[in-house]
């Protein structure tokens, strides 16, 4: 063989070809010829490299340099720089996602580094169209060994010893299957290869056939020899033209070399292999249907027994294995079964190829040892979820499989372990879904697939899947009924139990598994007519409005900004939100996470536009509402939840009194959020509107001290608890009684009360949420010199908003990741240091994040005079007497009876806001306020035997429809803010608000999903 100083490998798999690798290949050939390097540099078009997301891919050896997204135009530079001058081209290298540092060598890229290649051994390395290259990498050594040194029984023994199980999905032990066929009497036997890969999201068989067709042929020769077959068929779907082309070529080459056909390698064994093209029926992947199809009949499954090993193709003993199974065989025979069985778990041996697709960064083919946690495949090899979204589930096993929820990410890739989850290994299609996926819709999708692909032979599959689909379609359209989930479960279990073949028996799996893990989503669709992922568009006008807990009509007020009608926009907002000014500053924007614009460039800056309206528009006037009802309502706590409830109840004619312990109304908005994020006058203005309705707010009045709780209940018909969560959680470590230890909530409250708070100079904050950032930035403003946030996970796991984290960093806040305090040390009763321990991330927790584990011996002491734990808060419920009929839960909170969101164990007492849910957001508190008002009113009316409340007719505001003809990619308009130096020593609002020009420009980005066309 000729020796070259360098090899340029251009991926010629279908994925890379689709993104233009053929042009790249031609350009390389041209350029090498033009530079007269043809004698020094070999250019190889390989099969699929595996990292399809990065295609077209080029790898240059001997260095192993990996180039991604290569275009034909880049080729000149690569040849000139890399090949001629020896300077690798950095800009085309893979970049580490967080640091953006280029990674030059292929095997250093996490996607490749964590894989183990057996079935994909030659992927991206050899020219699939040259048998010599296959042979050069030990090709046909397994077949040679089997045919010349081993008896068929010895071969079968070796395969049995390897523990190899069918990779097509069933996981039946391959050696055992072969031994059955070997024992079957008959002069004609068939060795068959299933290359009818049809699962949505699975493409490993195609890649193997395109990259390494000889491996499959060799596997079939070995299998054929061991069972005594003289004829083989590869049943390959016609939609794989490249695979078929390379297979046919490989068969020809193998025949020319005497590796196929008569008297292979002089052993006396003969085998012919033919490629049979399937016409695209999914069911033809089922073995008996596949055989029927080869026989020229319509591909429909036959009942088993008789099994194919006894009566298969043309009623002759046959063995069918899939592509990946055969690709493992040559190496098992060559290297020995015990080598193979040393890899993997107790019952699942060797490696498994997964086709990783969906909402994952590194889409491609991965091969890992059995026993690798599924989470490792998705997060380490797959590089996590695209766009920093939350992982929701992964569908494993295609339409026959089930989903793996976040809580099961530690599950090992092992046939039995996966079945326990309600999924199947299947052929290894792993479709990753993020928070924007609706699981009901996903189930509907897979059910539609199975229902269409049902051959129509047996009743449960043909009719049953159709009925299941109809129910799912109904649910997605908002026409779900009580009992639908149960009916789906009944249908599913009977179809599974009674269908004729594997297709029908597994078709209900996606439904069963999504019901098992995401029943709440089904219920949201059926009972609340809500699609939590904002996917089922029949359920909403626009995704943003649907995602908003109070369903603010976002497209309407954005359209009114565009039209310059700010007063109308204000009125639209006020219909559902009593605190638009507050939300314009501190809302977490559930809306924006579902904004369709985000799929193009950035989501709309919805909150900032909202703020623009309240900053610049004329606030609609509020008229007092006369008291028309005799029942009186007391609300404890003047936060967003309590005040919203007060507003709604006042509008319904109730006399409402709000009792507030602190000097000002506003609750957590006023006392937990720092002024530089939320100026006090903004809150005060919006509270005024509520008072203007006739609501009485009694500040500086603590229930339990200034007025007893029992007295309150005597005076008022209904009491609503909206006391917030003002008690910080403790760290639970030694030394928390030292001076200099503050809870974040208590610390922020002191500051927000306007008290003179003395902070130390070295401040440590513990936690990763917005409270931690608020405490840190407040500490900076109070003059602390060193402010360090200690967070036990990684930055990407921080619940705090990214722009808040960045702002804190700009203000000099340091953040230490993967660290947790284990002990507080002091001198003379005063804190002097925090003993910290380094953490490492291990397995996944129930939320799908990796759990931090302490690293033994990594302790160090951080010098600090103040520490502020900001890990969570709970409600102060001490005002409720011990002997009350309002029961408390085991953590000291108020018990909320199941199936209720705002009831306590006492009929006349309700509970809302952070006190009910734990620390949440303003907008969720508002939503609870609206809900409790409706529930309180309804409970009174039911008691009085009155008709239900009727909402007064809504004020009609005409919403203009104007959109840009052409959508041009435009990033979200940035928020003007104070420079870091101008803000670090004061509490001035940091964000300055949009100007008219910016707001108009931003408003024009709205795609108006609400439009009915």
């Amino acid at each position, binding site marked *: 063989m000729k020796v070259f100083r360098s090899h340029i490998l251009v991926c010629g798999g279908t994925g890379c070809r689709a993104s233009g690798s053929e042009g790249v290949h031609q350009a390389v050939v041209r350029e090498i010829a033009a530079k007269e390097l043809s004698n020094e540099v070999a250019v190889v078009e390989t099969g699929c490299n595996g990292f399809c997301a990065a295609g077209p891919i080029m790898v240059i050896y001997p260095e192993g340099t990996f180039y991604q997204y290569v275009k034909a135009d880049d080729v000149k530079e690569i040849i000139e720089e890399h090949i001629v001058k020896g300077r690798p081209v950095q800009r085309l290298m893979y970049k580490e996602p967080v640091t953006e540092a280029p990674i030059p060598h292929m095997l250093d890229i996490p996607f490749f580094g964590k894989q183990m290649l057996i079935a994909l051994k030659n992927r991206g390395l050899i020219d699939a169209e040259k048998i010599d290259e296959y042979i050069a990498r030990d090709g046909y050594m397994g077949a040679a060994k089997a045919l010349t040194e081993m008896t068929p029984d010895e071969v079968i023994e070796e395969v049995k010893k390897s523990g190899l199980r069918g990779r097509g999905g069933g996981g039946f032990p391959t050696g055992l299957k072969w031994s059955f066929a070997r024992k079957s009497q008959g002069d004609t036997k068939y060795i068959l290869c299933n290359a009818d890969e049809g699962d949505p999201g699975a493409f490993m068989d195609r890649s193997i056939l395109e990259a390494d067709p000889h491996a499959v042929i060799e596997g079939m020769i070995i299998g054929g020899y061991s069972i005594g077959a003289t004829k083989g068929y590869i049943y390959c779907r016609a939609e794989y033209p490249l695979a078929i082309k390379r297979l046919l070529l490989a068969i020809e080459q193998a025949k020319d070399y005497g590796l196929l056909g008569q008297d292979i390698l002089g052993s006396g064994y003969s085998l012919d292999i033919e490629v049979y093209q399937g016409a695209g029926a999914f069911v033809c992947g089922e073995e008996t249907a596949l055989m029927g199809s080869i026989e020229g009949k319509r591909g429909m499954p036959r*009942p088993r027994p008789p099994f194919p090993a006894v009566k298969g193709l043309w009623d002759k003993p046959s063995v069918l294995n899939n592509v990946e199974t055969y690709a493992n065989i040559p190496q098992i025979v060559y290297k020995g079964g015990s080598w193979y069985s040393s890899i993997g778990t107790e019952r699942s041996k060797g490696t498994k190829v997964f086709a990783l697709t969906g909402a994952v960064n590194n889409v491609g083919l991965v091969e890992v040892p059995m026993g690798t946690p599924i989470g490792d495949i998705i997060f380490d090899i797959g590089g996590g979820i695209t766009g920093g979204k939350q992982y929701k589930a992964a569908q494993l096993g295609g339409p026959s499989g089930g989903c793996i929820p976040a809580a099961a990410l530690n599950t090992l890739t092992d046939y039995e372990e996966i079945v326990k989850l309600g999924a199947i290994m299947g052929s290894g299609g792993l479709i990753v879904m993020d928070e924007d996926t609706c699981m009901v819709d996903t189930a509907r999708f897979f059910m539609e697939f199975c229902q269409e*692909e049902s051959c*129509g*032979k047996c*009743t*449960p599959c*043909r*009719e049953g899947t159709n009925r299941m689909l109809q129910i799912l379609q109904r649910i997605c359209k908002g026409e779900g009924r009580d009992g639908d989930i149960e009916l789906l479960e009944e249908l599913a279990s009977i179809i599974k139990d*009674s269908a*004729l073949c594997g297709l029908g028996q597994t078709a209900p799996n996606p439904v069963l598994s999504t019901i098992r893990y995401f029943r709440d989503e089904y219920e949201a669709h059926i009972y609340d007519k809500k699609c939590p992922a904002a996917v089922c568009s029949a359920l909403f006008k626009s995704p943003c409005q649907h995602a908003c807990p109070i369903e603010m009509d976002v497209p309407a007020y954005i359209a009114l900004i565009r039209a310059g009608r700010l007063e109308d926009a204000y009125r639209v907002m006020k219909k559902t939100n009593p605190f638009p000014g507050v939300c314009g500053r501190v809302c977490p924007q559930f809306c924006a996470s579902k904004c369709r614009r985000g799929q193009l460039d950035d989501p709309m800056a919805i909150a900032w536009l909202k703020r623009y309206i309240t900053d610049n528009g004329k606030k609609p006037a509020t008229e007092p509402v006369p008291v028309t009802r005799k029942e009186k309502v007391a609300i404890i706590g003047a936060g967003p939840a309590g005040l919203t409830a007060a507003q709604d109840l006042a509008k319904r004619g109730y006399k409402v009194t709000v009792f507030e312990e602190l000097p000002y109304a506003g609750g957590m908005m006023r006392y937990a959020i720092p002024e530089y994020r939320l100026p006090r006058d903004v809150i005060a203005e919006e509270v005024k509107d509520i008072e203007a309705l006739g609501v009485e707010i009694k500040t500086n009045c603590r229930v339990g001290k200034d007025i007893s709780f029992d007295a309150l209940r005597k005076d008022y018909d209904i009491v609503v608890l909206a006391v917030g969560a003002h008690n910080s959680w403790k760290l639970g470590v030694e030394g928390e009684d030292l001076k200099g230890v503050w809870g974040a909530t208590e610390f922020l409250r002191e500051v927000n009360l306007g008290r003179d708070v003395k902070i130390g100079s070295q401040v440590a904050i513990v936690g990763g949420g917005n409270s931690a950032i608020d405490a840190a930035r407040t500490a900076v403003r109070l003059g602390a010199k060193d402010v360090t946030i200690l967070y036990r996970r990684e930055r990407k796991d921080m619940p705090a908003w990214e722009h808040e984290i960045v702002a804190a960093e700009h203000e000099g806040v340091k953040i230490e990741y993967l660290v947790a305090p284990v002990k507080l040390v002091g001198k003379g009763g005063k804190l002097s240091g925090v003993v910290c321990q380094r953490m490492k991330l291990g397995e996944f927790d129930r939320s799908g994040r990796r759990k931090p584990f302490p690293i033994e011996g990594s302790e160090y002491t951080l010098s600090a005079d103040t520490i502020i734990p900001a890990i969570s808060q709970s409600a102060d419920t001490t005002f409720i007497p011990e002997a009350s009929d309002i029961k408390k839960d085991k953590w000291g909170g108020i018990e909320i009876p199941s199936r209720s969101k705002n009831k306590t164990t006492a009929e006349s007492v309700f509970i809302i806001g952070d006190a009910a849910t734990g620390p949440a957001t303003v907008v969720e508190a508002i939503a609870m306020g609206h809900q409790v008002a409706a529930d309180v009113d309804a409970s009174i009316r039911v008691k009085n035997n009155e008709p239900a409340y009727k909402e007064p007719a809504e004020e009609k505001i005409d919403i203009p429809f104007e959109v840009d003809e052409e959508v041009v990619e435009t990033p979200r308009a940035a928020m003007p803010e104070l420079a870091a130096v101008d803000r670090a020593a004061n509490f001035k609002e940091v964000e300055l608000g949009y100007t008219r020009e910016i707001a108009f420009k931003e408003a024009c980005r709205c795609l108006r999903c609400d439009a009915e066309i």
Partner: protein
Amino acid sequence: MVITIDGKKCEFAAGQTVYQVAKANGIYIPVLCHHEQIKPVGACRVCVVEVEKARSLVASCAMPAEDGMVVQTNTPRVLSSRKLSVELLMTQGHHKCITCESSGDCVLQDLAYSLGVESPRFEEPAAYRELEQANEMIVRDMNKCVLCGLCVRACNEVQVNQVLDYTGRGPTAAVGPAFGLKYEDSDCVFCGECVRVCPVGALFEKQGRFQGRGDDLQKVRNTCAYCGVGCQLDVNIKDNRIVKITTPREGAPAPNYGSLCIKGRFGHDFVGHADRLTTPLIRVDGELKEATWDEAILYVAEKLNTIKKEHGSDAIAGLSSARCTNEENYLFQKFLRAVIGTNNVDHCARL
């Protein structure tokens, strides 16, 4: 070899299915897509039973009995599965029993009744498919088809006409000739085997439509008059008129075991036809006159004798009919050779 069905030990011979063993032992298992003359395919899943150690339910019609097998035919699991299958079949189309030709003689109706599927929970499809009834013999009402596939298998396995097969997949799956052709436009020879095996009212004889069903009709077993095979058939009579010809769905006797050809099954309208000859006719002075059998036979005998005398035996040739029995054909050639004295004898089936 012995299997246990519902606690009863049953002996069986190799090759027997669980259903066959149960039936032979008086244990009832309902079937729909099964037919004694056709290879079982286990499609309808009505005959499912629980087999000990099996992962899922098993179609008893296609399951070979194995020594030591333990089978339950009547458990709640089996019944709920059976019931759902029937419920699904009842609502997959429009089974309008009130005007259905098969009402009272319908496997699906019996199943629904015996399983008590009173009010199916699924809605019937909105679309109603037009009946295919352009030809004079077979009406196809695909609204009633339950896709048991018996017509397909009967066409391919019993009569080996290979006209019918499945088309489409999933909800569009259907049975019929290739390319969605109508029977009369396809290679169909109208043997009517598909009609015979259809367990519901999806395929029926056009001639008998609205003429009576069940006990309205008197069935008279007869031998087909068309040829020498001697096919056994049932003449369905009402008010002394033939309404239609049928053969038993199962349990039909030799030699035809229920199969017929187009003539035997559909060619009966001549019997009551106004143009039918009921007496021999003799042409007198250019006009046909009614005659008695004696007159007619005498007339023919005289003429044959005259021809033989005047022109010799070989001036006479005989052509016999396929509608005669073997014995009649034998006698006919014997008559020509021995009585007339010629070898000029042939048979219409040879032409």
